[in-house]
């Protein structure tokens, strides 16, 4: 028997796991899951329905003999180019992932199946849209049976969404600490009293937390006391509850919070044209836009035919961009919440289960507009370290230089000592040259700023 290299996040079930061969992921389906899986992939069955509806990642079956002779089936799923995690998704993306899970559960139960787990880690954003990626999550079930993943759904979707919506969207970062779901007793302690007046939040979070405490550790029977209607009612109630959640109130509160620029209209147009021209001639497919705010430039770059990952630390701005593009049917940008001062670390079991952001960067080009002064002056990062990180992330870098006399820099310096003698264009260029990179500087018309293009030495 050949040993398979299991994906480090895929250890929870011996009968259905992902392994990696030649850099490509495959899914092993063992004998225990074989009969459910066989029913799942029946012609015109549930798998067909979900793939056709764009809800499930398309896949092919590979003859097991070629790779894993003891498997009942081997699945080759369509590759997911950039893996992202729920704690990097803006609120509305996690909300869409929750609604996707419920839609799949609804369709599955109509065909006599159930999801045996309900975690956002079963979902990835492919071409900007959420798709379900775990082909072994489906089991045949009695229609009256309780949903075993109900608790997980409430802890991993409903609780974090409710907290982001009713407390603060910045608490989306809690999903990284509570990687397997927010304990409901904690969730209800954080939620404001008005959450008691929403039937869904009261029932699925408050009452649920109370019942968990009361019946903790007591074995429960599996009794088909329920009916298909009860299950349908639960799913419909969860859907209504999640649809009622939004972060609109926070949007309004933060309405004045944008990374406003000091640009004149003419300079802004010149900057846009320059970015378009520069990125247009750089090679490669993937562009990562760091400090993208709501992603206006990311959309421009995507319009050049590139695949874009847009990252910003402001969850409200990222969400605003996500919603704007989703509502315009524009799926070319993957919008993530991330802070360069503290990029997503590798977390989970053995620090290997969920990988670090910098290890997932597949960029041919990194773009950093109006960012350097925030890092160098706002957060005291030396220019040489910024240059080093940018060059590490991609072979081509487009970075905007914002000089010290720029009003935005002056604003950062207004309340503190200027200890930044080294904050000069020459220092920055020199740092790139030290790394063996070649630079060119393009002034932005009608402004003091310029665009630096860096090509890393191979």
């Amino acid at each position, binding site marked *: 028997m050949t040993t398979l290299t299991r994906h480090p996040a895929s250890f929870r079930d011996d009968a259905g796991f992902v392994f990696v061969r030649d850099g490509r992921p495959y899914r092993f389906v063992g004998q225990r899951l074989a009969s459910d899986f066989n029913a799942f992939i029946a012609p015109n069955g549930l798998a067909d329905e979900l793939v056709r509806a764009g809800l499930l990642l398309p896949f092919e079956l590979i003859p097991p003999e070629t790779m894993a002779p003891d498997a009942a089936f081997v699945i080759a799923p369509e590759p997911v180019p950039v893996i992202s995690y729920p704690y990097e998704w803006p609120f509305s993306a996690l909300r869409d992932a929750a609604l996707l899970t419920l839609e799949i559960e609804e369709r599955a139960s109509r065909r006599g199946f159930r999801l045996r787990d309900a975690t956002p880690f079963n979902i990835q954003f492919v071409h900007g849209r959420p798709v379900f990626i775990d082909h072994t999550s489906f089991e045949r079930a009695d229609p009256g049976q309780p949903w075993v993943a109900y608790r997980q759904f409430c802890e991993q979707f409903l609780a974090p969404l409710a907290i982001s919506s009713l407390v603060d969207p910045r608490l989306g970062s809690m999903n990284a600490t509570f990687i397997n779901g927010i304990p409901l007793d904690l969730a209800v302690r954080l939620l404001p009293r008005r959450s008691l007046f929403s039937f869904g939040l009261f029932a699925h979070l408050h009452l649920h937390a109370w019942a968990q405490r009361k019946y903790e550790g007591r074995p429960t*029977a599996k009794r088909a006391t329920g009916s298909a209607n*009860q299950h349908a009612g639960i799913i419909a109630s969860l859907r209504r509850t999640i649809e009622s959640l939004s972060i609109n109130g926070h949007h309004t509160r933060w309405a004045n919070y944008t990374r406003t620029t000091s640009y004149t209209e003419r300079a802004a147009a010149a900057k846009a044209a320059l970015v378009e021209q520069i990125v247009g001639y750089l090679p490669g497919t993937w562009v990562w836009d760091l400090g993208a705010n709501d992603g206006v430039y990311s959309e421009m770059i995507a319009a050049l035919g590139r695949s874009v990952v847009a990252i910003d630390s402001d969850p409200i701005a990222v969400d605003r961009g996500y919603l704007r593009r989703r509502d315009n049917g524009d799926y070319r940008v993957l919008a993530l919440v991330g802070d360069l001062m503290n990029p997503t670390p590798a977390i989970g079991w053995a620090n290997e289960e969920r990988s670090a952001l910098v290890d997932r960067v597949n960029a041919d080009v990194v773009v950093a507009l109006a960012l350097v002064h925030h890092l160098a002056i706002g957060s005291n990062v030396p220019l040489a370290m910024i240059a080093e990180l940018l060059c590490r992330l991609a072979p081509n870098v487009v970075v905007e230089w914002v000089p010290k006399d720029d009003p935005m820099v002056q604003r950062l310096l207004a309340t503190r000592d200027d200890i930044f003698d080294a904050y000069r264009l020459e220092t920055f260029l020199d740092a790139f040259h030290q790394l063996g990179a070649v630079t060119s500087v393009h002034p932005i018309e009608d402004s003091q700023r310029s665009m630096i293009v860096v090509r890393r030495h191979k």
Partner: protein
Amino acid sequence: MTFMHHDLILAYLDPGSGSLIIQAVIGALVGGAVVVRAKFGQLSAAVRRIVTRTKTS
């Protein structure tokens, strides 16, 4: 409790005893609504059919 019975749920996840119980309780509350909504849908469809039939005839 009617939910406490033989035949333990052995799932790949721990479904949680409290979670199963509360699910049955909420299910009983909202499951009725599903039936009512379905019946109401059938009823209004029937009424609509009758009304259209009367209109066309």
